[in-house]
């Protein structure tokens, strides 16, 4: 690779100073029921898991902050489908879906939200801090941007050891203004660390729309100053997400080159359960819901030939899985070992 390596993709856009319009997301990416079925199942399970946690939250069974990813499921599911078990994932406080996609069970997630001993981090972390060594899920982090250098660090270790693993780092567009992001990006580019930095641009940072938080709304452009490859596309189609992230993963795995990928998406709910989302119009939300990536995925599955009966059976199965997770969380014993993990003996 030469000195200037900005990768030009079909979706490469010029700097925007106005609100970004989406590219047309209705071009079809080829797939089969065998590929799409499991992706749909994961997206649906995440949707149901989030809905169940919202319900438990309103019943006072889950406390603190609860940030739901409803509407954005295609991003974490598609991206994680492009990596292997040995690869790492680092995420934010909006990470239940990423954890589930990486292989953390609905039971372990739900029990954590309930603050139970059987939770994935024993009730010590809660919604924002899922960690799971078994699936190489390196955490959900609550301080915006602080985890980007951590992801670069995991990638540094992979390069150091030559283990061929790639790290996916997820963050919001709101994180792109903070130092942790800027410094993580700079170091990943300088040292060619095998990390894929995935900006889930859901167009809002809490109540702030992108046009009030970014001078240039295209986050992926930041890669250019570092000679880093970039990509930017619409995140409605899970297969497309998978394909595009796979390109970046392949590049990281074979050349060590990091990529900054921006995926345009939308969260249907408020920032967290306590946010009524008054800063956007009903019409805007409805417009996005019409393009719900989950419905789209279901329709596509039928189009590529999955029998309706098989689909319904899958949906019943997901329903049972989430009901079981809630029951498990309800019936689990309370958390109890808070003094044990301050320092390792």
């Amino acid at each position: 690779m030469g000195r200037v390596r900005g990768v030009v993709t079909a979706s490469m856009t010029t700097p925007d100073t106005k609100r970004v319009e989406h590219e047309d997301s209705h071009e079809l990416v080829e797939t089969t029921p065998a590929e799409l079925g499991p992706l749909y199942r994961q997206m649906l399970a995440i949707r149901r898991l989030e809905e169940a946690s919202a319900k438990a939250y309103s019943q006072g069974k889950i406390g603190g902050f609860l940030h739901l990813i409803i509407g954005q499921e295609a991003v974490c599911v598609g991206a994680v489908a492009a990596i292997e078990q040995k690869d790492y994932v680092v995420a934010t406080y909006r990470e239940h879906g990423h954890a589930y996609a990486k292989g953390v069970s609905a039971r372990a997630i739900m029990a954590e939200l309930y603050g139970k001993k059987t939770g994935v981090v024993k009730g010590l972390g809660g919604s924002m801090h899922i960690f799971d060594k078994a699936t190489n899920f390196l955490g959900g982090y609550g301080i915006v941007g602080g985890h980007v250098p951590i992801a670069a660090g995991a990638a540094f270790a992979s390069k150091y050891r030559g283990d061929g693993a790639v790290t996916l780092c997820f963050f919001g567009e709101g994180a792109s203004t903070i130092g942790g992001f800027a410094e993580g990006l700079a170091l990943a580019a300088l040292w060619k660390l095998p990390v894929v930095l995935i900006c889930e641009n859901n167009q809002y940072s809490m109540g702030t729309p992108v046009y009030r938080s970014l001078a240039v709304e295209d986050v992926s452009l930041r890669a250019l100053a570092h000679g880093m490859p970039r990509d930017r596309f619409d995140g409605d189609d899970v297969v497309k997400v998978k394909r595009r992230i796979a390109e970046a993963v392949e590049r990281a795995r074979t050349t060590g080159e990091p990529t900054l990928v921006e995926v345009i998406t939308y969260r249907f709910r408020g920032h967290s359960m306590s946010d009524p989302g008054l800063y956007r119009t009903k019409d805007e939300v409805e417009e996005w819901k019409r393009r719900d990536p989950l419905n789209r995925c279901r329709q596509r599955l039928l189009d590529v030939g999955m029998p309706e009966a098989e689909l319904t059976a899958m949906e019943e199965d997901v329903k049972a899985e989430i009901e079981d997770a809630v029951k498990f969380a309800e019936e689990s014993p309370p958390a109890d070992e808070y003094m044990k993990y301050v320092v390792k003996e």
Partner: protein
Amino acid sequence: MAVISYREALNQAMREEMDRDPNVFVMGEEVGHYNGAYKVTQGLLQRFSERRIVDAPIAEMGFAGIGVGAAMVGLRPIIEFMTFNFSLVAIDQIVNNAAKIFQMSGGQYNIPIVFRGPSGPAVQVGSQHSQALESYYAHVPGLKVVMPSTALDAKGLLKSAIRDENPVVFMEGETLYNTTWEVPEPTGGADDLIPIGVADIKREGKDITLIAWSKMVWTCLDAAKVLAEEGIECEVVDPRTLRPLDVPTLVESVKKTGRCVIVEIGWPVAGFGAEVAYQMQRHCMDSLDAPIERVTSDDVPMPYAKNLEDEVQPQVKDVVAAVRRALYLE
């Protein structure tokens, strides 16, 4: 006299000071259009426009630094941290710049800035969002550290902080915003202000002194009620400002009662209560009838689960137990 909330008191203080001085402005995340993540800046954007109520993106280091630079050349910024947990991202600006520039510049540039926002453990938000950081800032010469416990104190102290010529770290209690207190109508005179560096006796008593700030004042007042039923009269003293600390008022109380319990919601090691304990033994040695007791949170990052979270933090029962120890009742 109106009974208002702690949140409303802070809002009034900013509103009144902004009316009074056009150089005062507010900058922080979600302070304008969203009316504040904790609604402390509610309505200020409408009143003062985007020029003076500035919504910043997530860039704490950047906007804390912008505040310092603006203060150097004559503005009086109020920098809101959505919570003080995020001030850690900006601590270089606060400690290495805001606190030091006056001395570094040989007294030429003072920094009249307020860094404010909710602080202290919150409810079930986990270790990164739930911690008491006052000891970090109280350590630093060049800063003032203010921690009001009531709406009355919040209003008068925030007005003083905004008028202060120095950087003031103004740490609000994240779980105190809905608490209420009687607050007089503003007169426009000096009595609207509560001076920085003056402690307040929140309850008088003769048997033992409880020293606490911010939320722990409320815990101590509750403990004092429980103990009063047994005939033990606690004096609850609220320093209100950790730096500068009103040592004479605390000393006077401890000399009177001869016993002292210091209650803080932070961690025990190098917590600010240790400094208070040092000052009290240094000045009250001959009057003390028992060793000074400290009550703190447990020495762990905050767990998420509610049952554990309650256990970690000082509760009324812990304060009562410490008082009983200091009175040799157990």
